[in-house]
């Protein structure tokens, strides 16, 4: 059993519960134990860095400092916004030692900046991809539009992850899972992220354009790696459909759910029932019978203070 650090952030505990469920289930299939960072706090996304510089640095720094204290070297951060904040703060503090020591005094913890921040794809690539194809029992044989959004790949100069204008990493994973990752035009266009609540009309327009291009190119599913992308494309579907004056009913799946399905985890364990847009993928004849479902059990071990 490999142990890897895990930072859920707020979304995994709320609106994107199925994201956490699917990541956990997938990890378990590959004998990986996700160890939640103890006493973690909000990463500060969207609000903190618009309001208070020191706060925006201190919040992610505290998470990383706690992980260091726990001896965690790699933290999986499935939420793209959390991943972005943690990575940027790590970079900024590494560039400026005096700022780093100032932040350390604010959070009152030792901060070295030694933990590796992994987004979901980097996590899969580091720990799972090598063994993925041998474990695929039910190829995910659907035309998939992989949607990366903005936070996963930008700013490239700091994250250095994938091709910034035409990312490929998720496409590669979907192909390994037996899927058909289609070429489409809106991989990194804005979904309206932060306006999900305040300006649903803007979200409907931006996300609507994304969904329209996907279905125009015959996508059967859109694959995402960010809870905000997911909520906009999934939860705001009625507004999107109203904007487009068209009924689009293809589901939005997390990459962890896609891989989970491919390795034979059942739909409920992956939380497919939690989506707003019903996941109603056409049944394709499986090449081999699916393996037994992974027992429903909390696979994330909540570390408690000794």
């Amino acid at each position, binding site marked *: 059993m490999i142990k890897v650090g895990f930072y859920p952030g707020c979304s995994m505990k709320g609106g994107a519960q199925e994201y956490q469920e699917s990541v956990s289930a997938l990890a378990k299939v590959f004998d990986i134990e996700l160890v939640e960072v103890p006493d973690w706090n909000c990463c500060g996304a969207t609000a903190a860095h618009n309001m208070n510089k020191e706060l925006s640095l201190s919040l992610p720094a505290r998470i990383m400092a706690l992980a260091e204290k726990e001896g965690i070297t790699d933290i999986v951060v499935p939420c793209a916004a959390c991943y972005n904040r943690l990575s940027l703060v790590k970079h900024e503090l590494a560039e400026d030692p005096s700022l780093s020591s100032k932040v350390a005094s604010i959070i009152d913890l030792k901060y070295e900046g030694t933990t590796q921040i992994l987004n979901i794809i980097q996590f899969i690539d580091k720990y799972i991809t090598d063994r993925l194809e041998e474990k695929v029992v039910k190829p995910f044989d659907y035309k998939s539009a992989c949607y990366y959004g903005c936070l996963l790949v930008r700013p490239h*100069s700091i994250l250095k992850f994938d091709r910034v204008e035409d990312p490929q990493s998720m496409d590669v994973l979907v192909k390994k899972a037996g899927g058909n990752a289609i*070429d489409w*035009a809106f991989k990194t266009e804005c979904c309206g992220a932060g306006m999900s609540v305040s300006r649903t009309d803007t979200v409907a327009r931006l996300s609507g354009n994304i969904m329209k291009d996907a279905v125009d190119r015959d996508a059967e599913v859109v694959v995402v790696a960010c809870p905000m992308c997911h909520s906009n494309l999934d939860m705001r579907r009625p507004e999107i459909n109203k904007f487009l004056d068209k009924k689009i009913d293809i589901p939005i799946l997390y990459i962890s759910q896609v891989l989970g399905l491919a390795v034979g985890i059942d739909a409920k364990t992956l939380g497919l029932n939690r989506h707003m847009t019903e996941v109603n993928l056409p049944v394709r004849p499986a090449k081999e019978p699916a393996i037994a479902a992974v027992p429903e059990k909390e696979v994330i071990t909540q570390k408690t203070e000794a």
Partner: protein
Amino acid sequence: MSRIGVFVCHCGENISATVNCEKVAKVTGELKGVEFSTDYKYMCSDPGQTLLKEAIKEHKLDGVVVAACSPRMHEPTFRKACAEAGLNPFLCEMSNIREHCSWVHPKDDLTTEKAQDLVRVMVEKVKKNKALNSIKVPVTKTALVIGGGIAGIQAALDIANCGHKVIMVERLPSIGGHMSQLSETFPTLDCSQCILTPRMVEVAQHPNITLHTYSEVESVDGFIGNFTVKIRKKSKSLDEHLCTGCGLCTTKCPQKKIPNEFERGLGMRPAIYVPFPQAVPNKPVIDREHCTYYIKGKCKVCEIVCPTKAIRFDQEDEVIDVAVGAIVMATGFDVLKTDYFPEYGYGKYADVIDGLAFERLASASGPTQGEIRRPSDGQIPKKIVFVACAGSRDPAKGIEYCSKICCMYTAKHAMLYKHKVHDGIPYVFYMDIRAGGKNYEEFVRRTIVDDETQYIRGRVSTIYEKNGKLIVKGADTLMGAQPVEIEADMVVLATAGVANHGAEELAQTVHISYDPYKFFAEAHPKLKPVETNTAGIFLAGACQAPKDIPESVAAASGAAVKVAALFSNDELTRDPLVAVVNRSAPPVYSQCVGCFLCQSVCPYQAIEREEIKNRNGEVIKTLARVNEGLCQGCGTCVALCRTKAIDIHGYSNQQVYTEIMALLND
């Protein structure tokens, strides 16, 4: 006891405004060994030089210190004056009290004191100076031109017309370079082929020029005036003497589906091919990578149809040695590869092409006979978007420089398109319009005004295909970054001009320096633009930086003049400020122990092995020896020598220590 003269220059007010020159002259005149000192308003002027010469004669000076500007400025002037007065020029040194003192300090006593220190240091150095004689090396009056594009052609013809022999090496089967691919040229719309092909033919027919096409330089040894070059003549699988260039083989070759490099992949060619109809030499080569015979072991159709039996399947590469006195690098440029533009769909969409491909579309000899037809379906595009700065001036793409030629050729493309498709609409996305050049700005104006090209200042964020159209999304920054979306039929990217592939390896082969972008580096950006840091090797054209045709031709002629000037001497003289390995009487012979650490660090391959033999011819000691023709006096070997056996004439360890001691013992 030395008899040194000190000459302090006011340089108008450049020095005297902050330094008390009279005082400097007076104080340094009292130094031990200084026989004479004076100050003058302009030492470099004719009366100033006369003053210097008279003083040398009158006071029988055996050393001179001129306290004035940087030695880069006037050292040659004063050394020449000394020589004219009968003093060995290498006994004259300059003390830089302008750049190193008066320009950088305020008017103050301390400034004057610093000037005195600088002069004192140099006086002490000159006491240790030795009379040196210039080095003489013979010259082989044959030039090697590497690259057969317009720059190489111009350089070769200019040198050959001066009466010197030229050897031209071209990597491809034909000379002509990128210019032969162009349709028309800005700003006059001259047909590129029409002005180029006569010169290509002239190269082939010139009695002084030997042409090696399909050949590459393998190694370069030697030094200015005396290079030895190995050239690999790749096998053309053809006896060139028998081949008449009838072209029957190329029409009968069954393999016809190889993307034609010359047409930027817009057309196909056979495996035995002549790159383009006007090729020089107009004789085919077999592309062994794609030839059915070399792949499968049978076919030989070309051999069967050849009326003169010129095909040679078993022909091998030939490596020849040539001796040359100068080398002109004219290897040109390349355009940025497709991987850089995933967001523009270059390589993914057939109708997103680069500027060179558009040149082929617009060329009368191109795949569409000059009609603008898009590659995907052959339709005439009604809307073309031209994207300038595709890669250039974009740190994210790793290219921070301006490719310089794109603004002009993009304007030309838009104009040519409008001339051929009257109802078409050309759009140009640009960052700035850089049209510096004779008649260039007027040309761009014509494109915008007369040919109604829509210039949009802003960058394109993404291009994607939808319903057979290319959707180009960008911003108009002159309209408050308002988003722009154009449904285009075709997109032309003005991709950045980059160093030619293999430039780095070639630079290392011929031992010249290059910049971070792998463009070859000139010796001085302003005053030595066609020289390299390696004596005897010159630059012409776009191998140095992106250049348009007039600039490439000008640089090539400049390089040719440098070669001709070099060849105007039977012997070369150069400054003797080179490293030397000390020698002494037997049985020691030298402090050198023959470890040859110096050989491994010398950037100029100037360290040779010298064997000392006894009367029986047995080697009793191996020493390092510096080749004076190659040594550039950098001093790396001196720093590394474990036994302090190497020193540099004019900058010996002793001289440098003396200077430091003079400062410390104030």
